[in-house]
């Protein structure tokens, strides 16, 4: 679940490339974990992006349960492949609060919004070649900008549109209740 203060997300960036698929985000062997069970939700977080090639910088330090990175910057077609909701959940459980990608795969994007795990921003500019893993950055949700702290470079992000209030509310159900679409929690 997303918790942001003052519409700002500040933290370290992890950079990933194109076509990061759901098998890399959360390998299938961990799909026996059920996200609605709190201990297993946390466990999913500890495995986030462990499917990346071993040549990549680790997203989670060996032995750690969460990631030190808060913002993920990626290329095209992020989250392609499976419909496993475990994928956006693992990233959120690991501590990611926003993703800035050139484009998303449909089901992953939909799942990210429905779970409200993080803000899924899109940007036409190829930021995965501009940022480096470890850069400190500030993402302004309202202004729709991503700023690299050391260089003060600010990049415009595509507006979230209809998605923003759903994620801000905490996902599909929270939003549906907030807007009166469905009744109180059973």
């Amino acid at each position, binding site marked *: 679940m997303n918790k942001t203060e003052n519409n700002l997300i500040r933290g370290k960036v992890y950079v990933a490339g194109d076509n990061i698929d759901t*098998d890399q985000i959360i390998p*299938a*062997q961990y799909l026996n974990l*059920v*996200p609605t069970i709190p201990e297993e939700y946390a466990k999913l977080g500890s495995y986030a992006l462990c*499917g990346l090639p071993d040549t990549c910088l680790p997203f989670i330090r060996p032995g750690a349960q969460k990631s030190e990175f808060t913002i993920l910057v990626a290329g095209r077609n992020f989250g392609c492949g499976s*419909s496993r909701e475990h994928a956006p959940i693992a990233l959120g459980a690991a501590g990611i609060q926003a993703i800035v990608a050139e484009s998303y795969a449909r089901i992953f994007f*939909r799942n990210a919004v429905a*779970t409200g795990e993080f803000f899924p921003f899109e940007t036409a500019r190829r930021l995965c070649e501009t940022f480096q893993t470890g850069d400190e950055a500030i993402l302004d949700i309202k202004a729709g900008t991503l700023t690299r702290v050391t260089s003060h470079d600010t990049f415009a992000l595509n507006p979230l549109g209809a998605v923003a209030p759903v994620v801000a509310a905490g996902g599909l159900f929270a939003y549906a209740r907030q807007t009166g679409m469905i009744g109180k929690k059973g």
Partner: protein
Amino acid sequence: MAMTITEKILARAADKTRVIPGDNIWVKVDILLTHDICGPGTIGVFQQEFGKNAKVWDPDKVAIIPDHYIFTRDVKAHRNIDTLRQFVQEQGIRHFYDPAGPGYRGVCHVALPEVGLVRPGTVIFGTDSHTCTHGALGAFASGIGNTDAGFILGTGKLLIKVPKTLRFRIDGILPPRVMAKDIILRIIGDIGFDGASYCAMEFTGDTISALSIEERMTICNMAIEAGGKNGIIAPDDKAFAYIRNRTSAPLDPVYGDPDAAIEREWRYDAATLVPCVAEPHVPSNYAPARDRKNIKLDRAYIGSCTGGKITDFCAAAEILKNHKVTVPTFLVPATVEVADALITETIDGRSLVQIFADAGCEEIAPPSCAACLGGPEDTYGRTSGHEAVISTTNRNFIGRMGSKNSRIWLASPMTVAASAVSGHIADPRDLS
């Protein structure tokens, strides 16, 4: 106002006279499908949001088909199936195929049409990206996650955006030993791994009409590998014959208007298509099989919703009937029905089981998703080292079948069989 088949199905499901691409609409769901790895999470969301004692909107519209982690010692996998058992009992859901009982079926996307739950003109959502398979029978079928599925369980509806339609028209006669898998791999290779993102992929033309229903399923199954929202083929007499064999439920098919606006059309002459592979590590990495004869293989794998149907095994047997494999060849029928058919189907008087045994294949495994997606470490066929695998499955991402160091080439059952014989990637037309 003219609409495509996808637009018409969605309009009807949303009680609207017309929709256009981009419209966000609430559709009534005809079937919600889930399995053992996403079912428990979906049930979790449903019970958290609607209450522990809440009832699903319509138990007859829910299909729960365990298929992913069935033949494993993994304790959580078995706990997950127990979760499903408890839920179907509480809810009175009859479309449940228990691995522990005689009703077990196997891979959900092959089982769902087997049990007559795929009907033209209907709206099917499943917690599995290959739900798009069911467009082969003229339904709107698309993959979703646990939260959306939990929402459907409680309300019977989902908010979706009407997709634009991309049309793929294939005409002419497919050359011998060129299969549906070769058609879809070529298309994905041409348009790219996200070339159909958010779009409906409509397949048409006389080549498509000449394909069997199972071959049409193979094509629609891989629409997701180009990012497609759904894959769809207009229902015809073949589709109705298939369905009538499975159910006598009333059918209310939908057909697109020939003058409906589409986003773009691609045309193919079937005679120009060849046996091909998708190379590591994306399904869009197209290459003709003949251009890859130098690739040495360690394993061949025939199985999954994409390539583990009886048609797929018959095609493989056509190649293997006169040959011996030179690499370990793993066979996983998608469902119990397919496994049974391996015994009864014959070529020149020999059963497929016998043909595969004579060819030196591994013993046929029980039906499930098995190693298509890796799975628990004791999964049959899972890679563990640097294996070079040629497979009838649907994805070849790094680590997809288990090991990050293994490489996967995707191909048709005939190309996989020919390659199993050769020990290198082989074009099935080059074998007797």
